[in-house]
């Protein structure tokens, strides 16, 4: 099985860090993974995109033309990268920031207010976490336990409430993904 995921948003939304955590988790699960970032010269506010490929077999090209899933953290990135989502693909939208309608009929769309979820559990900075949660809840691309372990290790030196907050944000997103799967 091979899954091509694009995560996109603006600099500072955690696009790269969540992509790396996902790729690290895939390697832990003994899968092949490539993480390919693409960003402009800006430190914050510019467009940020990463392509993560996770596969049971060796990955030949890390530069696919289309992805299976697109995570759009904001309006601008949805517009910019929607064309790279394959027909029949899955679009995961941060509805806290994306308000305009998606004019494609050939997609499965999962929508969740990631900024609001993040704020509710304690930090506006972790809107990336419910988004990846929804992805893993919907796709089975990876065992969610393995991802959560990697996330926990990442924050090992931080106070326990940081880990708890991230886990909570993940579970909220994961539930949205699972519900979408049940309705599919």
């Amino acid at each position, binding site marked *: 099985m091979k899954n091509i995921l694009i995560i996109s948003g603006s600099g500072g939304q955690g696009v790269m860090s969540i992509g*790396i955590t996902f*790729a*690290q988790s895939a*390697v832990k699960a003994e899968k*092949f*993974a*490539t*993480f*390919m*970032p*693409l960003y*402009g*010269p800006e430190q914050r506010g510019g467009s940020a995109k990463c392509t993560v490929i996770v596969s049971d077999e060796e*990955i*030949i*090209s*890390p*530069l*696919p*033309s*289309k992805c299976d899933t697109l995570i759009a953290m904001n309006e601008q990135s949805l517009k910019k990268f929607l064309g790279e989502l394959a027909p029949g693909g899955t679009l995961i939208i941060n509805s806290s920031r994306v308000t305009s309608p998606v004019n494609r009929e050939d997609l499965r769309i999962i929508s969740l207010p990631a900024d609001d979820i993040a704020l509710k559990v304690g930090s506006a900075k972790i809107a990336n976490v419910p988004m990846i949660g929804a992805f893993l809840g919907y796709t089975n691309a990876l065992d969610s336990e393995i991802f959560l372990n990697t996330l926990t290790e990442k924050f090992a030196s931080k106070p326990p409430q940081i880990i708890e907050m991230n886990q909570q944000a993940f579970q909220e997103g994961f539930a949205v993904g699972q519900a979408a799967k049940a309705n599919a």
Partner: protein
Amino acid sequence: MSKQLMKGCEAVAEAAVRAGCRFFAGYPITPQNEIPEYMSSRLPEVGGTFVQGESEIASINMVYGASATGTRAMTSSSSPGISLKTEGISYLAGALLPAVIVNVSRGGPGLGSIQPAQSDYLQATKAPGHGGFHTLVFAPSTLQEAVDLTYEAFDYAERDRCPVMILMDGCLGSIMESVSLPAMKDPAEFEETKWAVGYNGQSRPTRIITSIYPELVLENNNKARVETYARWAKEDAKAEELLLDDAQYVVVAYGIAARVAKQAVLALRAKGIKIGMIRPITLYPFPKQSFAKLNSANVKAIIDIEMTIPAQMEEDIALATHCAIPIHSYGRSGGNLLDDDGVRQAIEKIVGGEA
């Protein structure tokens, strides 16, 4: 050793440290900043020295100085920065000093684009500095290969007392993949470099490192280069060959382009097209041996895929095939990356005779 997910630049830097590199000087430029960043904390841990120079030119000359003492030394930069280093690279070659130079290349010419590109083939293989010399040029395609080639590059550099270049584009510099890292070498166990400044054994005169010589000495050094380059061509040229036996079309690509091209070749094979591939691993020496195997009666066309426009490797392919096989090319440039569909469709067009 188990595999770990690493970023290209960091993997290359760690491979250098494990190969015994104990001096690094560099100056920031995207997309290779993670190499100096990594070295700045890693080298002090192993008793090495990291310097952020005041410029590219200062940095390459610091590498010259460190190398003259027999220390394994490295610098890295990206395209415009490599141009600035070329004077120093020529001096290293002139002074018969080993060094490893990594070019994580980006779009050009000029300040170009910070996005990845393979636009420095001609510079790397034909004129990495003034004076008419070559360096070995290694072009990894995966991070594992980047690690392995960087690790070996220091041995090659010392063997022939010359600079060795690792040419990898910004994709390979910033991509993360699993790598297994080679064993840590201990520089204390290296054989003493008898040519280095400070070597005082065997009652020989103190060696003077210079790149200016009396005419006779300079010409003799240049004649020795002819022999070295002939030996490289014979013994050190490397390429990966794929599905060549019955191939009517042969794709040629190196580095990141080769991965995209390989995916296309496999997809087209599955459709019944007799297509194969040659992937140069050493760009200098160019792997002519692989091209010598091609029979112009069977091979209808060669398709050169590079992430640059105009194609640069085409001239070497023409030389290696004695212009006996038509060559087509496809590329992207200016910070636009090659992608799977684009490359496959371009090859299909050429095979279908539309291009």
